[in-house]
């Protein structure tokens, strides 16, 4: 017995509409600016990867990403967890 086709259609209707995209900016002490546009529920690792791609002299994984000066961001977290908004700036430091 196959499920009725109406139900499938209804599921597709229930699907949430796509989240708004936010643009994040990464700044480091060398003066590099890296912009990345992502969804609120995406992993922050995407921003970090974009930064490492733009900064070849920074060893992958050695950077530290801070939001608002005191909150450390981790790749496994999402912008929603820290309340990041559009046009927010993330500071990047090379870890010592």
């Amino acid at each position, binding site marked *: 017995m196959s499920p009725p086709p109406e139900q499938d259609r209804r599921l597709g209707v229930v699907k949430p509409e796509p989240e708004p995209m936010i643009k994040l900016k990464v700044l480091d*002490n060398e003066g590099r600016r890296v912009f990345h546009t992502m969804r609120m529920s995406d992993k922050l690792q995407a921003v970090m990867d974009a930064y490492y791609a733009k900064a070849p002299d920074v060893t992958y994984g050695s950077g530290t990403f*801070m939001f*608002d*000066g*005191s*909150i*450390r961001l981790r790749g496994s977290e999402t912008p929603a967890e820290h309340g990041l908004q559009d046009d927010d700036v993330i500071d990047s430091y090379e870890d*010592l």
Partner: protein
Amino acid sequence: MNPATPDLLPERRKRRFDAPPLPRRFDAPQSHGRPSQRRRRWPFSPLLPENFFAFDMGNFISGLFGGRRPKDDGLGFYKGWCDARSRDLTVITDEETGTGQHLLGRTTKDWSRKAALEAVKGSQRQKSEPFYKKALGEARRNDNRLEERGIKVRLEEERLAGIRKPYKAAEEDLSELFKPLTDEEEKEVHDCFHARGPSSKVLVLHEPSNIEVSKEKFQCLIPGRWLLNLYLELLKEREKREPKRFLKCHFFNTFFYKKLACGKNGYDYKSVKRWTTRRKLGYDLIECNKIFVPVHKDVHWCLAIINMKKNTFQYLDSLGGMDHNVLNMLARYIAEEVKDKSNEVIDTSSWQEDIVDDIPLQQNGWDCGMFMLKYIDFHSRGLSLSFRQKDMEYFRKRTAKEILKLRAD
């Protein structure tokens, strides 16, 4: 002239210069004058050496040619020689002339000479000492300014004692600061420092700031920036927990100064503008009593303090250094910050740099981070910096305990 005797009496003028000397006549005087007359004519002759004139002559010629001989050679020798002659004969012993044969006589003469020399020396010393002593004594008696100095010193000491009293009152609180760890805490800290297992194992995680401390970070001798930042967060929490016991302070983390001053374009206020929003902190910097800014200098940690109540800047370096550049940057920053956040204009150029001389200094090369944390800790309590290098071992353990418990006391 008798021509018959030309050989016997030749004419003197015609004698050849190489002719043999004439035989002396026996009846003629053998020399000029008598011995007594001779002495009268040359009164110094027995005293002078035969080559007496050679002294100055030789010196004169060599002096003309700029010879290497010491200029004083002839004259000096002559003077020495005259001195030796004129010295008292008793002083010149047989030992000096090298002709002494009798041991007994020689030793007695030695003794007499030594005694004479010592007597001369002793009398000279005894004479010279009382002179300046007497002069000094007189100067002292005459100079009553010394007495005034003494009175001034006593007054100053009394004044200082009055100043020290409040400090001592504050020091009563130190018993809590140096409270020894309990055995359990000691064991816990020891386990963390020496436990086996992977070094990347996470020991504690501070939720609000998302700082995690792994064993690796925990074990390093110089507290890394994460440990410092975590401890600063803990200090802030402590202050919020007990606002009455601690001064209202703001603790910037270790990234602040780097972001503010060490960017590509030097000083940049915009990059840290968002760090201190009221929405985020819940207060404005202008309300704070003190603002602490850790300054990282390559491998060394220093601390800058902005005292908002006294309007002063302070720079504490546990190696005793000073950097006016840092304070100038902070003066610019705080002026812009207050203008931006509170819309007030303050003139930081008139603020004083409060230079403290007797801050505790580190005696080794790795305690700077710990010293910085303790400067912050003591200042946030409003205490004077009354700790020393020897306290660092305790402070290390205590800080480790506080980080493990995520609660600063």
